[in-house]
């Protein structure tokens, strides 16, 4: 029986080559697009799934809250929590922690800066890191032992075993570290990014301001493993009480203060990545892409539905005949569903090949490392096969049902089945298809335009030819700067605690001139030359000057903050504080809180133009700038565009003078700015690519419909011609028939596309304006593509001899 189905199906495919080609190609492209997106989504959901007892392991994270400032989210937890957890909750099985820092390794004359985890020794057992060389047992018990990844081992000791080799590093004092083990590299979808595991020692961090054992700095990445079956939500519910009971309310020091609160989060290890994506808004984008993938698949399935319905008349006779010889409706249904499932599976095989071919480019665009492990992953294979079957069933559902209920008597006496209202339904399907395609295309257009616009956005500073040299804090700062400026290729040098694109973490409160609630400004400790090097003009007043005593908030000499100091604010800050103009702000003194414990009198001596310090997605925030000799570790160096290499050499030389034996870290400001747009540019590119696919599939369908219609209307056209219609009339008749659904689709797509684009654009402070014109342009383009698709058919039939057309029946 099935053999007979297959034979009929195959011969029918072979007979209607165009139809089969369009159906298979359309489905294959649709499936390939969907699978590509699915692979990416799967990859994102697969992070950190395979650690030892991932399901019972939770990461402890902290949100610090302040009565008068924004919350601060930290991926770590404070030091005392480990002991507290172990003592309080019997359901806690184990806890491990690490401190994330970089480590400079010296090996002969070579120096390597690598990310390291200063970890509790139980970390290896906790996650069961897999050892390639050496032994997990006791690998971290000795403070001089380290464990490194395979990747780092290959980098340090290419072609030889790293086990037992010795490297030198200065953590607190310079000492030798023996490599006690090499572990497998972390997969790309693990949240661990360190290459070295170093046994944690408190001695390394004695006296470092940012590392203390109290409740101020949630720096320890902490992982808690609960006993199987623990009600973790129950534990989470008890955490506020735990903090209430144990967190000291009055801790000395500048970074804490009255009313500060702490919220602890326990995030399942398996959910960690998705949780992060949710925080950054990337999860919505991911889900958006899944929808796009589904829509493309829907377009392809609609093609199939549509063409199959259009061509039912070609097989109606066969069905009627099968019924007269005894086929039941169910058997007919099964026959046609089987047929479309077979077609879908053929498409799936082609789609899998397409995915394999496209994957390298896809990974390139996404900057991802997605693998297509089809044959080593039976679940994926089964899942995709199921997908093929579901797609086949849905694609075949319409015409199979149609055939199942078809009355054979209506077919066998006549010359094939009548169209019976199917035409309108098919047109509705075409409209639906093009609505999706046009809406996608319009959204892609706005995403691309916005990205372009963001690139041309005036950042308020000059990002070109700027090199950022990090880690220059210390008393030599002035000397380094002087040394750099000795080079004729270095034009100017500015200092600050952070640089543009990074944002600032300091939040200062100032009382507006009109009174009322305290206004919050982003604080940035700088050197006096910051505005000069970034070419940020002063709108009023002057920049700060280190030689003016009262301009210095804190110096290495006094070590204390001044009670009254001159500061600079930006124009947004002046507006926020209620000044009518930048000039009006000059000379005004405002009581300002640096923290909730420390207030000072700030006198505004300068107002700078606004400039972007955070992401260009955000609105420019009000800012306050002051001189602080302790916090200006980033040097921004403007170099001579004509002598970039010489300038870079000069920077390297200066570094070697002051930091011999340490790894120099420089970044290009232009690249840092560019990186901000990469995410959006990526979305734009992908969306465009998938949109093109959607259009191609839709046009394939249109082409099929056109060839079918022309065949069916041959007689009508013949009669029209006999009655005097001319070549042009006939062509127009057919073109108009195919323009109608596209025009309706345009009308339907307009509100959808504008809504989606508006939602996406609302995430940008500086955005392009939506207008219907691009949509109309795109629609015209689609219409032209549609015309080109059907024109061949139209002209052919319009030119044909009417007598032949009439005889054809």
């Amino acid at each position, binding site marked *: 029986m099935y053999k007979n189905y297959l034979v009929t199906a195959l011969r029918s495919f072979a007979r209607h080559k165009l139809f089969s080609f369009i159906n298979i190609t359309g489905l294959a492209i649709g499936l390939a697009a969907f699978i590509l997106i699915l692979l990416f989504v799967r990859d994102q959901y697969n992070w950190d799934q395979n650690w030892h007892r991932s399901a019972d392991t939770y990461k402890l994270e902290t949100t610090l809250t302040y009565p008068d400032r924004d919350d601060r989210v930290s991926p770590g937890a404070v030091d005392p929590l480990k002991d507290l957890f172990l003592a309080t909750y019997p359901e806690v099985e184990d806890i491990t922690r690490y401190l994330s820092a970089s480590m400079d390794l010296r090996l002969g004359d070579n120096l390597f800066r690598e990310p390291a985890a200063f970890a509790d020794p139980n970390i290896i057992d906790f996650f069961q890191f897999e050892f390639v060389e050496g032994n997990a047992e006791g690998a971290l018990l000795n403070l001089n032992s380290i464990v490194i990844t395979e990747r780092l081992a290959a980098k340090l000791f290419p072609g030889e075993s790293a086990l037992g080799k010795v490297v030198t590093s200065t953590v607190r004092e310079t000492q030798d570290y023996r490599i006690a083990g090499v572990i497998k590299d972390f997969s790309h979808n693990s949240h661990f990014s360190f290459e070295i595991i170093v046994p944690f020692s408190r001695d390394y961090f004695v006296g470092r301001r940012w590392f203390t054992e109290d409740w101020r700095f949630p720096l320890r990445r902490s992982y808690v493993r609960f006993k199987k079956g623990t009600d973790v939500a129950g534990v989470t519910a008890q955490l506020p009480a735990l903090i209430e009971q144990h967190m000291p309310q009055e801790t000395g020091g500048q970074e804490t203060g009255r009313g500060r609160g702490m919220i602890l989060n326990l995030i399942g290890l398996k959910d960690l990545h998705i949780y992060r994506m949710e925080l950054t808004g990337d999860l919505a984008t991911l889900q958006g892409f899944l929808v796009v993938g589904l829509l493309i698949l829907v377009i392809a399935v609609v093609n199939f539905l549509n063409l199959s319905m259009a061509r039912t008349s070609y097989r109606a006779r066969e069905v009627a*005949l*099968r019924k007269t*010889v*005894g086929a039941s409706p169910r058997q007919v249904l099964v026959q046609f569903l089987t047929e479309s499932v077979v077609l879908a599976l053929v498409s799936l095989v082609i789609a899998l090949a397409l995915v394999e071919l496209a994957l390298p480019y896809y990974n390139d665009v996404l900057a991802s490392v997605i693998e297509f492990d089809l044959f080593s992953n039976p679940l994926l294979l089964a899942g995709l096969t199921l997908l093929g079957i579901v797609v086949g069933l849905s694609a075949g559902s319409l015409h199979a049902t149609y055939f199942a209920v078809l009355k054979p*008597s209506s077919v*066998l006496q006549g010359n094939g089945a009548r169209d019976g209202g199917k035409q309108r339904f098919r047109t509705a399907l075409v409209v639906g298809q093009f609505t999706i395609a046009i809406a996608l295309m319009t959204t892609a257009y706005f995403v691309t335009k916005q990205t372009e616009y963001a690139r041309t956005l005036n950042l308020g500073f000059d990002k070109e030819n700027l090199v950022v040299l990090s880690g220059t804090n210390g008393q030599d700062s002035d000397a380094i700067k002087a040394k750099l400026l000795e080079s004729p290729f270095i034009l100017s040098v500015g200092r600050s605690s952070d640089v543009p694109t990074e944002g600032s973490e300091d939040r200062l409160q100032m009382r507006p001139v009109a009174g009322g609630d305290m206004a919050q400004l982003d604080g940035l400790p700088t050197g006096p030359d910051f505005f000069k090097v970034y070419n940020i003009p002063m709108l009023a007043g002057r920049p700060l000057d280190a030689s003016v005593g009262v301009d210095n908030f804190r110096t290495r000499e006094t070590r204390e903050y001044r009670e009254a100091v001159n500061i600079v604010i930006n124009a947004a800050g002046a507006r926020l504080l209620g000044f009518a103009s930048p000039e009006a702000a000059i000379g005004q003194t405002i009581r300002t809180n640096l923290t909730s414990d420390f207030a000072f009198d700030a006198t505004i001596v300068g107002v700078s133009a606004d400039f972007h310090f955070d992401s260009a997605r955000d609105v420019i925030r009000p800012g306050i700038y002051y001189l602080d000799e302790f916090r200006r570790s980033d040097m921004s160096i403007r170099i001579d565009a004509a002598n970039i290499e010489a300038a870079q050499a000069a920077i390297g030389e200066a570094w070697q003078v002051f930091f011999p034996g340490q790894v120099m870290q420089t970044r290009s400001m232009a690249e840092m700015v560019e990186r901000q747009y990469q995410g959006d540019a990526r979305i734009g590119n992908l969306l465009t690519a998938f949109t093109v696919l959607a259009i191609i599939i839709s046009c394939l369908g249109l082409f099929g419909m056109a060839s079918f219609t022309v065949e069916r209307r041959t007689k009508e056209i013949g009669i029209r011609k006999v009655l005097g219609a001319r070549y042009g009339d006939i062509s127009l008749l057919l073109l108009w028939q195919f323009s109608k659904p596209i025009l309706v689709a345009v009308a339907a797509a307009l509100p959808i596309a504008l809504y989606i684009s508006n939602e996406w654009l609302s995430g940008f402070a500086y955005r392009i304006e939506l207008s219907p014109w691009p949509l109309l342009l795109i629609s015209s383009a689609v219409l032209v593509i549609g015309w080109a698709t059907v024109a061949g058919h139209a002209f052919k039939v319009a030119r044909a001899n009417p007598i032949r057309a009439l005889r054809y029946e």
Partner: protein
Amino acid sequence: MLKLHNLSKYYRTDEVETVALNSVNIEIESGEFVAIMGPSGCGKSTLLNIIGMLDNPSSGEYVFMGEDVAGYSEAKLANIRKQNIGFIFQSFNLIDELTVAENIELALLYHNIPSKIRKERVAHVMDKVGIAHRAKHMPSQLSGGQQQRVAVARAVVGDQAMILADEPTGNLDSAHGQEVMEMLQSLNEEGTTIVMVTHSPSHADYARRTINLFDGHVVTENLRAAQ
């Protein structure tokens, strides 16, 4: 074999109700050869479709081999049909994608007959209608007469008790028409009940009884003495 009692069929569109059959009473005995005649649109084909269970009557009774089948589901009808009834059409209705042998075999496919036996029976019936040498050909490669012979073979391959022929000679020249009629006659002599719609009085002469339809009514029934 079958009995139609007060059987009617209407077609409804939005505005008009067309009566295709109006209280028809017909009885056909096993082994009969009945011709149905009448002008175009008199309801001949509708009658044949209802007899063949391809269409449902609007009212009335249809007893087929002792069962009143008027209200049966389509699946049940399909089952009765495949056991008992073979069809021959004016336009042959062969499937273009299947060879001669495959077209004939189609009628056995829904009978749960093992492939080997199917092949044997197809070969046998092809011999009988003289089309065996064309077994592997596609319908488009055959003449009209040959195509109709394939259709006849398909109608009888399942040992159906009754054959319904809807103007089987309508698309054939007289020589080929004659050939098909002789084939039907010999099938009838072997015991197959035949109900045939025809326009041709000379072909109706092959039947033992002629039913004349006009505007959905049975007007006359002529019985012919056995020749």
